[in-house]
């Protein structure tokens, strides 16, 4: 039987040996090595790379399933974890519509003539987040909630010419770390403002005191890291008084029911966009949402999609205001953002459109309602008390009559992620995906475990 030419070793190289020879000939070269002649011999690698042998597709699949299979997840365990990242239901239609091949394999829409469809989805995203935040300008994404907070802090510094940033002490600890790192780079200072020990909310007197020296901005997270909803108007009033910009970082699900921060006086709103249709993904990728007042637009990092006209005067969409960006302004750019989270922004847009006005409100209402249902049951357990008196949304902190880490470990043995520890309290998040039966079961397990651990 006729023999085949030698097969190619690697899956994604398309040339046969004969193709390479013919192409080299066309170049007047005799070997592949000739192509690399500009590389000095003395720096070259003189051995093969030490990497695993090539896996065929099913060996790869078995290996990955084995690795994934050893991870627990919110599908194998009953989870009450939150802390900025929440287990929401993602309609299948979101996955389906965002897996269109062109949306998966396109580049950033630098060529608007080829990209009107994806530009429009991003444009719709910007408008939806503008409506949610109550601010006029939204960019088409940053990396995540933490980097969005940090980039926005720098926006405020640029806009005010100040380098001092005030921030609530009740920001998620990881986000503080990102904020500090970003500000350290540019020579800014982060000063934390204490919370009221009873309500759990920001202490306005502390904020007032922190304004003793001028600050570019004050950053308020709501719900804060104890789950407490903050008083935005109070912070806004103090910021206005001290000519500082107010940045509110919020859980986007709260925006379904509560007044938009932009309406309450926030100049900048940032969010971790993960709750808007993004899988938990063990840490990422997520979505950084950034919205601001129109006057701050010049200082904004990232891409903006806007309406333009083609040379015939016909309306079209394109990336606009690129003079802020690194590919145009280089070291004078507002940021180094290049690759962003465009596909995640598309997911968020389609998620919101899939739910629609009342669907989104229904989800948010269930989150808050089911959290209250569990909250009440847990407070009935002897020794369990609320950690603070302020209002919560769907995540609440409890004081336990036992060691939180030991409690969590016991619950883990029962295949429950019962929350996580914040300031020696237990922070418990509830979302719409929990059924009444699951909440009842969880409450019973809480009671049993706390009872067993005693005082």
């Amino acid at each position: 039987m006729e023999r085949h030419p030698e097969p190619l070793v690697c899956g994604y190289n398309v040339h046969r040996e004969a193709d390479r020879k013919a192409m080299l000939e066309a170049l007047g070269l005799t070997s592949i090595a000739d192509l690399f002649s500009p590389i000095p011999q003395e720096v070259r690698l003189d051995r093969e790379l030490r990497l695993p042998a090539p896996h065929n597709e099913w060996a790869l699949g078995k290996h990955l399933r084995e690795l994934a299979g050893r991870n627990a997840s919110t599908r194998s365990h009953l989870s009450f974890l939150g802390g900025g990242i929440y287990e929401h239901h993602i309609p299948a239609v979101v996955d389906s519509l965002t897996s269109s091949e062109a949306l998966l394999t396109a580049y950033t829409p630098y060529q608007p003539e080829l990209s009107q469809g994806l530009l429009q989805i991003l444009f719709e995203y910007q408008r939806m987040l503008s409506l949610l935040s109550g601010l006029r300008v939204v960019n088409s994404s940053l990396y995540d909630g933490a980097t969005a907070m940090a980039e926005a802090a720098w926006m405020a510094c640029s806009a005010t010419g100040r380098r001092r940033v005030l921030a609530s002490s009740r920001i998620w600890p990881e986000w503080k770390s990102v904020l500090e790192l970003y500000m350290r780079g540019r020579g800014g200072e982060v000063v934390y403002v204490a919370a009221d020990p009873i309500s759990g909310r920001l202490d306005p007197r502390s904020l007032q005191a922190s304004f003793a020296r001028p600050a570019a901005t004050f950053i308020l997270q709501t719900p804060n890291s104890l789950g407490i909803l903050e008083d935005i108007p109070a912070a806004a009033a103090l910021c206005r008084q001290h000519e500082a910009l107010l940045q509110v970082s919020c859980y986007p699900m709260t925006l379904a029911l509560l007044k938009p921060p932009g309406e309450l006086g926030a100049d900048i709103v940032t969010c971790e966009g993960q709750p808007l249709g993004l899988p938990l993904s063990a840490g990422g990728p997520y979505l950084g949402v950034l919205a601001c007042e129109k006057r701050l637009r010049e200082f904004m990092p990232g891409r903006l999609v806007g309406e333009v006209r083609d040379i015939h005067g016909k309306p079209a969409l394109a990336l606009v205001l690129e003079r802020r960006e690194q590919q145009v302004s280089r070291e004078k750019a507002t940021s180094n953002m290049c690759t962003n989270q465009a596909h995640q922004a598309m997911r968020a847009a389609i998620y919101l459109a899939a739910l629609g006005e009342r669907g989104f409100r229904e989800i948010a209402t269930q989150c808050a309602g089911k959290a209250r249902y569990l909250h009440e049951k847990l407070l009935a357990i002897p020794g369990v008390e609320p950690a603070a008196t302020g209002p919560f949304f769907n995540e609440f902190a409890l004081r336990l009559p036992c060691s939180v880490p030991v409690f969590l470990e016991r619950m883990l043995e029962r295949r429950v992620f019962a929350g996580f520890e914040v300031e020696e309290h237990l922070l418990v998040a509830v979302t719409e995906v929990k059924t009444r039966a699951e909440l009842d079961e969880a409450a019973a397990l809480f009671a049993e475990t706390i009872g067993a651990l005693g005082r």
Partner: protein
Amino acid sequence: MKQTIFDLSRPGVSGAGLQDPDFGELDPSRWFDAELLRTELIGLPEVSEIELVRHYTALGHRAYGVDDGSYPLGSCTMKYNPKRHEPLANLSGFAHAHPRQPASTLPGLWELLFHLAEYFAELSGMDHFTLQPAAGAHGELTGLMIIRAWFESRGMKRDVVLVQDSAHGTNPASASMAGYRCKMIRTTPEGLTDLGTLEAALDDSVAAVMLTNPSTLGLFEKNIRKIAERVHENGSLLICDGANMNSLMGIVRPGDMGFDVLQLNTHKTFSTPHLSGGPGSGPCGVKAFLEPFLPIPVIRRDARGYFPDEDRPQSIGRMKSFYGHVRVLIRAYCYILTSGSRGLRTVSENAVLNANYVQARLSPYLPPVFGGTCMHECLLSTAKLPVSAFDFAKRLIDYGVHPPTLVGAGCVYFPGHLRDAMLIEPTETETRESLDRMIEKFLRVAQEATEDPELIRTAPHTREVGKILPSGSHRSQRAHEQKRPALEPPGADVP
């Protein structure tokens, strides 16, 4: 522009029912003070599922991806993205794991990430990697922050970073974010770093020199070892924008060239999809002496297994909230396991072969700016033609080819005298037949340009919208002496 989803809204319509009958009608006004609650509708669109699907299906068709055809976007490396990675990255144990789960419940994740970091180190010649950065530019920033922390740990203040004038715009922008002043190094007429200029610029204010190698002009820095020597003699560090690592795999390693720090772009080198603009991932590698400064957590292995280590007092802190773009990194891991060492070497060989083939075939009409052998991308000039590179590129759209990278229309910034240059990167996943078809189209446009330049200047002619002039590139606008008509405020700007 197509009707927006807002235009389709029919108030009162909702997607498939969402209510939970066990809870029934819930009333938020029972839980929140009236002044907290929204008093008006948000204004979100309301459509049924079929309307949603038809709207976004139609929009999805109005885009152009690698799966649709040639995409020779220089420096952006639009190679084929293997389909097998998608279901694996979506496995429940990855997709549905919460980042706040106890570390002990994610052993498979840590093991994968640990090995992936090792593979990156082996490929690049660096000693340690963090997988945390969210994208290439974020990786650059991470590297610069690590350099900064290292100088600070030694009580030294250096505030300048030297950058090639042809560098990606992200390089100077990242340097600026890390608190450095940027100084530009001129490119020689051969397109390489001017060693004289570099040496003249090196003084004790220079913390680091940042080079892209191969450069964004598609050329390998022949003098890289000498550069590294001079930089290190000056007490400065050498940082690599590893965006072009896709041309070097198995052939030469930045770590062996003398780089102390580099970032990788997983989509350029490891075929993770670009997803219309991201998410990407930008792992950052360092030499051993910089390891203590890596962001937390660092994935480590001890007798009990793999785990994320946060107890690292010298760490710069966190570059983002959690461990990295896990589901992007899984795709890179799969790519490496599928390819193996020879497969990856072949990727680089073929990427360079394809670029040189395109350069050779097109050079009679579009001469290379620098001549000689290029690496994985070639820089060709339209100067001989009566139309600009911008016009030329837009006409390619009519032939179903994505334009190459240009000033103001891609992520590479070319120094002023290169405004008529096009950076063409075919990538290794294009067959010879596909290259020949693409070359044919370039030649046809070149011919049209001489015969009917107006046809080219007013292209594209076959898309739903006509030519759109770039907003940011004043140079380009001046070149055409056309003003962009009526720039509207960005979309989010709700009147």
